């Protein structure tokens, strides 16, 4: 992977896939009808992306690692005083990143157990029963409102940087950017091993498989009852 870039390729792919599939999930969820089937598929894909990103936060490049960019309140205060120097997410932005990841995970997780009282339910809804599934639906709807608010804040912050502070953060999220080494912040170290990527992809695939009901007992009743004689 390219040396000196701020964001490695997997992080960038994660981001823009998340944006694209997230829009797809939101739109199909709102439209309903037969598109609700696609909604479920998009949602599972998003779940996979989030799991990938979380694992990548431990085995990925420096700027993607939680241990590196998630900082305490002192660092946030220093950042607000304009004293932060570094590459990657700033200490305040890091909190937004964590909140975004957590809310998206909650959105997808609640969807797995939800039902629409029409003709669709999440692949794990039968595990918890109808009442809990209805509660999951309520959460799914509530969390979505929060997610929209946070996404607006997120994009608003990016636009604020662009227009008011004159810094284009979007470009690096597309082409990786170029990290300048300063005394305080060395150039980020990049995960070079394809193994790290494979591990993250493998864990994500396993999570999607389980979330899609792949681990449920196979002796579930058939979806289609035989037509009755009367």
């Amino acid at each position: 992977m390219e040396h000196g870039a701020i964001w490695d390729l997997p992080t960038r792919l994660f981001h823009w896939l998340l944006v694209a599939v997230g829009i797809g999930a939101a739109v199909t969820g709102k439209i309903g009808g037969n598109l609700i089937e696609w909604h479920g598929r998009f949602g599972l894909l998003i779940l996979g992306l989030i799991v990938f990103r979380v694992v990548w936060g431990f085995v990925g490049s420096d700027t993607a690692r939680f241990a590196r960019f998630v900082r305490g309140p002192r660092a946030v205060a220093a950042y607000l005083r304009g004293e932060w120097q570094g590459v990657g997410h700033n200490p305040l932005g890091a909190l937004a990143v964590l909140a975004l990841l957590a809310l998206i995970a909650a959105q997808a997780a609640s969807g797995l157990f939800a039902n629409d009282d029409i003709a669709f339910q999440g692949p794990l809804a039968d595990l918890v029963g109808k009442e809990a599934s209805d509660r999951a639906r309520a959460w799914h709807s509530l969390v979505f409102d929060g997610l929209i608010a946070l996404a607006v804040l997120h994009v608003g912050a990016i636009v604020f940087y662009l227009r008011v502070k004159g810094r284009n953060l979007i470009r690096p999220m597309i082409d990786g950017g170029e990290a300048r080494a300063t005394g305080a912040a060395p150039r980020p170290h990049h995960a070079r091993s394809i193994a790290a990527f494979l591990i993250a992809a493998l864990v994500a695939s396993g999570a999607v498989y389980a979330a899609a009901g792949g681990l449920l007992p196979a002796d579930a009743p058939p979806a289609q009852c035989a037509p009755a004689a009367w």
Partner: protein
Amino acid sequence: MKFRNMLLLAAGVAAASGTFAQQAQPKPETLIKWRQSAYQVLAWNGARIKANVEGQYNKDEVVRAANSTAAIANSGLGALFAPGTEQGKGWHDTTVKPELFKDPKKVGELAGNFVREANELAKVAATGDQAAVKAQFGNLGKTCKACHDEFKNKD
């Protein structure tokens, strides 16, 4: 004495008929049970149509489910949302939103869309193929969702 007995009898009949008159107006709990049950039958019909359009297609089964859906749609479900049923328990606590009782124009519009698509589904089931039924089933589902989004609580 005789006259008093007759008076008592008359009073008894009057009281009893009063009771009957009240029973002709079902209790709110009954109305809520009925509407929840009617919607559950819609869900049953939807589940078997879905199973058929996604798997092995059995036309007779789809026709039965579609006709049942259309029949329920045309049954005058609005009567089950009588005043006094804004809150309460049927098979379980009602999930209707109070707005349904305050905006008859909007409910009428959404219910009308639902009836139209249900009738269309019955027609398509009788004449169309699997793909046509699947598409129309999706159109019907959107009208269920439109009303639920507007007038049914999420839990």
